[in-house]
């Protein structure tokens, strides 16, 4: 392991041990090595003697924030990349968790993860909300472009492209499970009263599922890339959510997960909101 990551890991272990033995948190959610494969996986530590198992590497690509919802009503520590803190910020803005329920161990100066294309498009390299910082914050700001790979295509070509992409979908819902936004008790995709979309694999229902999924992400998706990474079929479903991210930024100057006090896109409105595309 590179020195930098070794240092971060050490610091996380040290601080976690302290937090746990002082009883400041009941558990720490972080990354560690799996028991069998030794791959990086989320781990849950409540015994201070086990704090040494906590690690941080460029393979820490799961979004941990979602686990906080399982521990509401108690104090939980969480090792958080800047994107995790954005996810936490969305939860705070939507009042899904309380600020005092979480202790955020935030990683400063995130360099991005291995194999996650979304990291190249991310301009948030320091935690947004944090209780304890690891490392020095990054000074210079970056504002990378959120790319539109389909920009050159005509509408018909995009339709064909998405038809092809979504026809491979096996409806395993790994994209949903990986995404921190997906917190509904009952997913529309599982509901049969009403049945929003057929549950079996088919071009029509797959396309419908992905449109609906993207619509549910609008104004909440932080473009973290977890969905894409989880997909066993390598489907570019992030193209849709990313487009909505760009639109929200351009039209409403809204980017989710930057301010816990700010309401999410659909939870508020302005009197002079755009009506672009409406029939006059």
């Amino acid at each position, binding site marked *: 392991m590179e020195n930098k990551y070794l240092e971060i890991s050490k610091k996380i272990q040290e601080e976690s041990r302290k937090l746990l033995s002082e009883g400041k948190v009941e558990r720490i959610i972080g990354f560690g090595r799996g028991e069998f494969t030794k791959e990086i996986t989320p781990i849950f530590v409540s015994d201070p003697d086990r704090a040494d198992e906590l690690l941080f590497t460029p393979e820490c690509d799961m979004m941990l924030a979602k686990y906080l919802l399982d521990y509401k009503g108690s104090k939980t520590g969480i090792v958080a990349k800047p994107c995790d803190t954005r996810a936490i910020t969305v939860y705070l803005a939507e009042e899904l968790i309380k600020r005092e329920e979480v202790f955020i161990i935030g990683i400063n100066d995130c360099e991005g993860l291995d194999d996650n294309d979304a990291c190249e498009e991310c301009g948030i390299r320091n935690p947004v909300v944090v209780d304890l910082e690891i490392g020095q914050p990054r000074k210079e700001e970056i504002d990378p472009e959120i790319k539109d790979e*389909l920009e050159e295509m005509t*509408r*018909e*070509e*995009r*339709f*064909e*492209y*998405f*038809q092809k992409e979504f026809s491979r979908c096996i409806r395993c819902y790994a994209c949903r499970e990986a995404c921190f936004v997906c917190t509904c008790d009952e997913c*529309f995709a599982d509901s049969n009263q009403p049945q*929003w*979309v057929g549950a079996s694999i*088919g*071009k*029509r*229902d*797959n*396309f*419908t599922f992905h*449109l*609906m999924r*993207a*619509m549910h992400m*609008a*104004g909440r998706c932080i473009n973290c890339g977890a969905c894409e990474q989880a997909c066993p079929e390598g489907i570019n479903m992030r193209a*849709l959510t990313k*487009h*909505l991210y760009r*639109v*929200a930024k351009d*039209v*409403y100057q809204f980017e989710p997960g930057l301010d816990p006090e700010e309401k999410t*896109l*659909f939870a508020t*409105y*302005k*009197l002079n*909101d*755009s*009506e*672009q*595309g*409406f*029939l*006059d």
Partner: protein
Amino acid sequence: MAAKENFEPKILAFLCNWCSYAAADLAGSSRMQYPPQIRVIRVPCSGRIDPFLLIRAFNSGADGVLVSGCHPGDCHYLDGNYYARRRFLMLKELMQYAGIPEERVNFTWCSASEGKRFAAIVDRVVARIKEVGPWEGFDGRGFARREEEMAGGK
């Protein structure tokens, strides 16, 4: 693509009870002429319309949708249409980006006294959708054909 010329689109119109539905009523009782291709669904407020309903309409074979609510500022429930406005703009962007012609996805405002405007809007929407032709479905297989198959046709 099925014959465009004698194509009679199926258009789902979600109309707010307090304005556009009354406008449709007014247009009717004033004997204004407008195309008969819309199927009206009356809803309590444009803010009630889940974008999923519109996506589902396309899944089920609608050639287009029209949503009409109260003008901004006139909502019966004060701000339902303001919330709706954001959702519909995003939905429109999503559909357009996914490759569904924007002519099929129509949003507008219409007050209870605007019977004439309502008739004109329906005219326009029908023309827009006729322009892009029948909706072939997300799988491109078309719906009319499926109906024929089910009816034992070719």
